[in-house]
């Protein structure tokens, strides 16, 4: 299927409409709502206690590990999507003589991912305490 910019025009129109709605909501909230700021009101909420220190402190390294694993899997998904669309459609677009090669390639690709996944599991990346 050929790429035609015309089929994307509705998306741009919709994007403009969504941005307009969101901005209008923000502006309406800013204009209509009352505004009486007091020092206590603008304090960070900590269940009635005066906040101690800054909220942006160090946090668990586990979150970084999850983010890295997410990147690995997500990029892998991105590789698989185009292949998945093209692989077994009714009007074949992949050359038939390459079919088994591609099949083996994908299996190796998934196997590599599984190896890294098992390694991570054994290393305890997914263990939260």
């Amino acid at each position, binding site marked *: 299927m050929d790429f035609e910019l015309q089929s994307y025009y509705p998306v741009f129109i919709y994007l403009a409409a969504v941005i307009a709605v969101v901005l209008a909501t923000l502006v309406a909230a800013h204009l209509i709502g009352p505004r009486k700021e007091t020092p206590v009101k603008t304090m960070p909420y900590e269940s009635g206690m005066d906040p101690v220190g800054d*909220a942006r402190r160090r946090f668990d390294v586990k979150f970084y590990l999850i983010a890295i694993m997410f990147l690995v899997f997500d990029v892998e998904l991105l590789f698989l999507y185009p292949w998945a669309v093209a692989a077994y459609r009714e009007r074949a677009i992949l050359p038939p003589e390459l079919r088994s090669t591609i099949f083996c390639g994908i299996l190796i690709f998934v196997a590599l991912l599984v190896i890294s996944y098992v390694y991570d599991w054994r290393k305890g990346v997914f263990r939260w305490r």
Partner: protein
Amino acid sequence: MHEFHWTHTLITVVVVLAVIMGACAYLILLERKTAAFIQDRLGPNRVGPHGLLQPIADGLKFLFKEEVIPRRADRLLFLMAPAVAMGTALFAFAVVPFGPTSVPPDPPPPDATMQQVRQYEIALAEYKASYQFVIAPGLDIGILFVFAIGSLSVYGVILGGWASNNKYSFIGGLRSSAQLISYEIPLGLSVLGVLLMAGSLNLERILDVQTRYGWFILYQPLAFLLFLVSAFAETNRLPFDLAEAEQELVGGFHTEYSGLKFGMFFLGEYTHMITTSFLLSILFLGGWHCPFLAEPAHTGMVGTIVKLMVLALKVFGFIMLYMIIRWTIPRFRFDQLMALAWKVLIPLALANFVCVVIVQEFGWSWVWLTLASIALFFGAGYFGTRSQTTPQPV
């Protein structure tokens, strides 16, 4: 490609936006009514008959409430977060069919006879003249677009949590972003099987394949289940609402938000719920298709209305499922949440994906996929419960 009309598109966009926002308002009422019913209460019943005007009253109250911006908050990001949450949720709907659609006919082979070419041209003209119930018809990136925009919603959460400069918001935002990115992977992996079978990312085409060969839930019940669970987590609904665990984190990432900005987060969450319900219906339950009742051949006024009703019923069913499950299953602990994503859903989704690849490669019947799904499900259940360990004291 589908003909582009300014007026059609503009009317569709306005109607869709209005309906989504109205639906969100009334879904909140429905949710409160459902909750009341389950807990043997009456629920909102003061504003209007049976509380039917409650959403309007709520909206006005949102509008007239004071907007407090904490003193040490990052003002720009603080304002951006609700806008991102609401904007991405609404924008993801651009390619989702909300009513009957059709697909363009396949072009004739190069050695086609004059008659075949003539037939193709007639079918193409028919397709171009018909109204498609989707904002951007014939968009080939389809489901990928929904995922790309939908996953941007994590920015709303993390920006809100960071900008508030509040400890509850910060922890809630961190947890929630970890949850959202973790569950995106099973979500994407479970759809891969559908793509392999349908051979297109375009939601209208995926629907069309299902009208011919049967709904994908029949062939991939496991993928449907994985997608359902991940969709619950992606929309931050119970039992996955750790981001706003009231008892421990007050309100999570939106603790500091008040008035209409809080309302925007709310709207974003409900829109996300509607979008995922549509996706579940379209990817696995055949969308507007219903055997005997709404077949592709049924066109005209009556057929269109029946198809709209069928799709609306399916979507409504999923939304009710969301609401009932909220009052059925208690919230997970954070370690259980992560373990579910990484140790259960992802291996299952990978195994399911490999099964689909093998079945497709050797051209076996899709019925084998159903059996493989069931076998995987029970196998996982067997091994999962056999190696169950009690939590170690820390």
